[in-house]
């Protein structure tokens, strides 16, 4: 008994402290990138790739907030990317191009959609929750394809990136990179605070045992709904950034495959650590980007014909690879890091 007490109480704080290194290194790497990229000769490419990584990092992290901490498997999270993107695009097409107006509208629209759909879907559990969030996501997807005035199926091009108080600073890719990083840091800090707060503790408790939480006097639904709204707003912000980066928004922002990818990023990085989701998003997007070349390089012993075909059909390797990671690295990449540190 006493042995167990000592084992449990003594080493617990130190791995937690050491694990905090992971987000610090992660964000330091993001912060150092613009400087390093300048020497690489492919500055534009690297910046745009990492901006995308950070934007999806925000989206995946927002999903981790409800999936990792609330065990709510939302299969329609890409809908919020679409809401953010379309809100920016539609406002811009009516001449409202300032981010100081666009972002509040994006957040309000995402919150409203999350509140309405959450109030309905959170009355269901398990697979029904997955299906109903999927259905709401698809609903929005088809709505977007039918918006003829705003490009319909083809999507719409934004005339330019959003202004900041009338200032066109975001046209500069480096400035836009910093803006994305700032948003990532802001949402990360907010999420970390929320998770540790009273509210977050109720959310985490509900994930573990809903009946127990009711038996001590909580109504889990209200907390889950607020978490869902918060998460939707963050994902909406990611959608706003995504549309701005590409200067384009289309229904493809919110396909159910995209929702699935977001879940994959969270699981890949490791559920319930927030920065794990960012790492998962990075791993997913970078693999997607570089796997063809990696395959080509690794298969040097094969004939040229097979090599090029392998590189061409890289998705045949990508899928099984992701499955293997999820199967054998329980806890995702964060789980691997944790295990590595214990040895």
């Amino acid at each position, binding site marked *: 008994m006493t042995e167990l007490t000592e084992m449990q109480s003594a080493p617990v704080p130190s791995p937690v402290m050491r694990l905090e290194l992971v987000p610090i290194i992660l964000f330091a790497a993001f912060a150092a990138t613009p400087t390093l990229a300048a020497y690489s000769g492919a500055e534009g490419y690297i910046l745009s790739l990492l901006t995308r990584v950070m934007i999806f990092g925000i989206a995946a992290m927002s999903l981790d907030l409800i999936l990792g901490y609330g065990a709510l498997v939302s299969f329609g999270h890409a809908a919020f990317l679409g809401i953010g993107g379309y809100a920016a695009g539609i406002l811009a097409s009516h001449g409202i191009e300032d981010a100081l107006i666009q972002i509040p509208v994006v957040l309000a629209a995402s919150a409203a959609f999350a509140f309405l759909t959450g109030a309905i879907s959170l009355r269901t559990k398990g697979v029904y929750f997955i299906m109903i969030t999927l259905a709401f996501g698809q609903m929005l997807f088809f709505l977007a394809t039918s918006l003829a005035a705003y490009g319909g199926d083809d999507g719409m091009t934004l005339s330019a990136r959003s202004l900041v108080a009338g200032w066109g600073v975001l046209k500069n890719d480096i400035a836009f990179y910093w803006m994305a990083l700032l948003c990532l840091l802001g949402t990360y800090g907010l999420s970390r605070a929320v998770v540790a*707060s009273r509210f977050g503790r109720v959310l985490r408790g509900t994930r573990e045992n809903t009946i*127990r939480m*009711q038996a001590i006097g*909580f109504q889990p639904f209200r*907390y889950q709904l607020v978490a869902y709204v918060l998460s939707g707003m963050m994902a909406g912000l990611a959608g706003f950034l995504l549309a701005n980066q590409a200067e384009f928004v289309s229904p493809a922002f919110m396909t159910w495959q995209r929702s699935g990818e977001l879940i994959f990023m969270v699981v890949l990085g490791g559920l319930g650590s927030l920065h794990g989701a960012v790492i998962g998003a990075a791993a997913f997007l970078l693999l997607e980007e570089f796997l063809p070349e990696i395959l080509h390089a690794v298969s040097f012993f094969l004939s040229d014909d097979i090599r090029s075909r392998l590189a061409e059909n890289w998705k045949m390797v990508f899928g099984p690879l992701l499955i293997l990671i999820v199967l054998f690295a329980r806890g995702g990449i964060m789980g691997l890091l944790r295990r590595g540190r214990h040895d």
Partner: protein
Amino acid sequence: MTKSVLELRNLRKAYGALAVTDDVSLSVHPGELHAIIGPNGAGKTTLIHQISGLLPSDSGEIIFDGEDVTRLPMHQRVRRGLARSFQITSILPGFSALENVALAVQARSGSSFRFFGHAARERALNEPAMDCLNLVDLGARAQIMAGLLSHGEKRQLELSIALATEPKLLLLDEPLAGTGQEESQRVVETLRRLKSHTTIVLIEHDMDAVFSLADRVSVLVNGRLIATDTPERIRANAEVRAAYLGEEEAV
């Protein structure tokens, strides 16, 4: 007679043709430990579920502290001071013992819609929680992950969580279930201590525990209450012996 803390009036619950709770009327006096005993399948746990609000009742009334709570959901009954434990241990296994109790304190102290501030470091929550843990002798185990506690300790923890909601009435569903000899001794000691803090309705199979703890005993057979009386008179009651105690002797 003093006003009762809990009063059940003609409470019913049926699954199809099977009446699980059949016209149960009962009143629990302030400060007493009221045990409900009965053979397996008598409907004891169903009755607790109905009182706590986990299951709706078909008809009848549940009056708690002078208020009709028959239609209230569980979390609202808890806020009015009706706490319960579960037959199958129900805790938050990934939280420390202290946090399990602190959450119960949090539920009754101020809004939980606070998004900033480290909840695990709030002294206003941790100190009362620590008091509740000490009351069940778990103070030394406060920082242990609840899922790693022994079975007996988990039962103790559940009692502590229920206490932390500051109940006027504590519904305990077989707190000794699955505990070993030594552990059950400790839980019985804890229950004896809790008696002085609050009114308790206890469902229990362990007859030694029931007769040593209870002020009054009700006997439930096939969903019907056949007797309510002091432990001595219940022991002597012929009908009870025939329906319940006799059954065990026959086996």
